[in-house]
């Protein structure tokens, strides 16, 4: 129990994290909006028209950040879940649970924007391309995680079961990714292949990076908001929650 790392995690208890998160949320929202506005400005007004894809390519400015975030958030979620399983800290499970819906949203957005982009570019909403397929499976993994946690009533049990699933998933995501890639490239004659965007102009790269930052800040902000709600739900009957100013009625 004297392990400093454990001490640190004990310090990160729901009780002390709740007000801290409350203070951080506005900052992340501000950053998200600022990056978002800058990114949108570049994506619509600075970035030039693509000579091959016309204006349609502008979908890239949300498609790629969403796709990146969907993968990144899964790793973060699994990280928190694993910490929770190893050190038995309450907050980590809540973090994992708070991240999952946002990750699923990002996965959905990458699917949605990709599908919509596919229609004008490939003439089909969907093709069974390696990257598309593995994005779809990632979405299923998120849904599985959420469904499993929703189906278990005892929150601590839900945390632990979810953690095992997330860890198994983390091992599997690369396996799935490469297997799908192999499957697709070994196979001759896929009728369409992903038209790689031409070497990206620096403005486009900037736009994408700014949008990615915005998505990142957004994800943090929303996850923090959700984790606060989860903390309240789970700790409803502890003394510190009863003594919160917003419940004592002083602030409202």
């Amino acid at each position, binding site marked *: 129990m004297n392990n400093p790392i454990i001490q640190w995690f004990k310090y990160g208890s729901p009780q002390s994290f709740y007000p801290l998160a409350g203070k951080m949320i506005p900052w992340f929202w501000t950053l998200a909006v600022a990056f978002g506005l800058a990114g949108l400005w570049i994506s619509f007004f600075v970035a030039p028209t693509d000579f091959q894809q016309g204006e349609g390519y502008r979908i890239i400015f949300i498609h790629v950040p969403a796709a990146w975030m969907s993968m990144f958030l899964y790793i973060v979620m699994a990280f928190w879940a694993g910490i929770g399983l190893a050190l038995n800290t309450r907050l980590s499970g809540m973090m994992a649970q708070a991240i999952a819906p946002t990750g699923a949203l990002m996965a959905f957005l990458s699917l949605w924007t990709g599908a919509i982009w596919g229609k004008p570019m490939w003439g*089909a*909403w*969907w*093709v*069974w*391309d390696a990257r598309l*397929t593995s994005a*779809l499976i990632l979405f*299923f993994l998120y*849904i599985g995680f959420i*469904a499993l946690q*929703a*189906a278990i009533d005892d929150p601590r049990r839900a945390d632990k079961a979810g953690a095992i699933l997330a860890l198994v998933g983390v091992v599997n995501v690369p396996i799935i990714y490469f297997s*799908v890639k192999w*499957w*697709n490239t070994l*196979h001759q*004659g*896929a*009728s*369409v292949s992903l038209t790689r965007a031409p070497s990206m102009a620096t403005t486009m790269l900037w736009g994408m990076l700014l949008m990615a930052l915005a998505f990142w800040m957004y994800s943090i902000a929303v996850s923090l908001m959700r984790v606060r709600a989860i903390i309240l739900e789970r700790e409803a009957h502890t003394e510190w929650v009863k003594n919160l100013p917003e419940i004592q009625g002083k602030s409202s």
Partner: protein
Amino acid sequence: MSAIIAIIRRDLLLAMRRKSEVLTALFFFIIVVSLFPLGIGPESALLRKIAPGVIWVAALLATMLGLARLFAPDHADGTLEQMVLSPTPLGLLVTGKIVAHWITTGLPLVLLAPVLGIQFDLDTGALGILVLALLLGTPLLSLIGAIGAALTLGVRGGGVLLSLLVLPLYVPALIFGAGAVESHISGLGAGGHLSLLAALLALAVFFAPWATTAALRIALE
């Protein structure tokens, strides 16, 4: 009549409580459909050809998986005994349960099918026929399935035995349902297939609740 509504309400309430059950049946449908391209390969011409068959087989399997839980929980906890003993005729209660089963498993499949059709690159006309065929076909699946669920109630290995009994009975629905879409695509018109499907449905509406009730009584003896 109020007993039917009461039991539909009850089953829907139970379904809401186990929300995950309804949702996961849906996702099962989606996942099974998505597995086929993975097994078969990504050529879209080939995929378009097998799409109606694959979607129908998946719908069939998704309905079937839920069937095991149509009567089993009520049987296990003794509620079914109480239903048999209740003054309301068992046939009515059974009809209510079948309707609730369709609302929670069949209807969502119908609503979701177009999205999956798009993944297989079907055009709008074909999607319409697909939805229509499923709208006629899924209640048929629930009705036939209920007979199987009642027959295998409390029988060892019920779950898998159930599929063994029910799948052959599902064959006509599958042939006419998938056939409707295929013959539309090949330009023959889907009318014939759809009306056969409707006729089967009408037959099942009269016959299935009776058979199910009889089977339930036997299971409880």
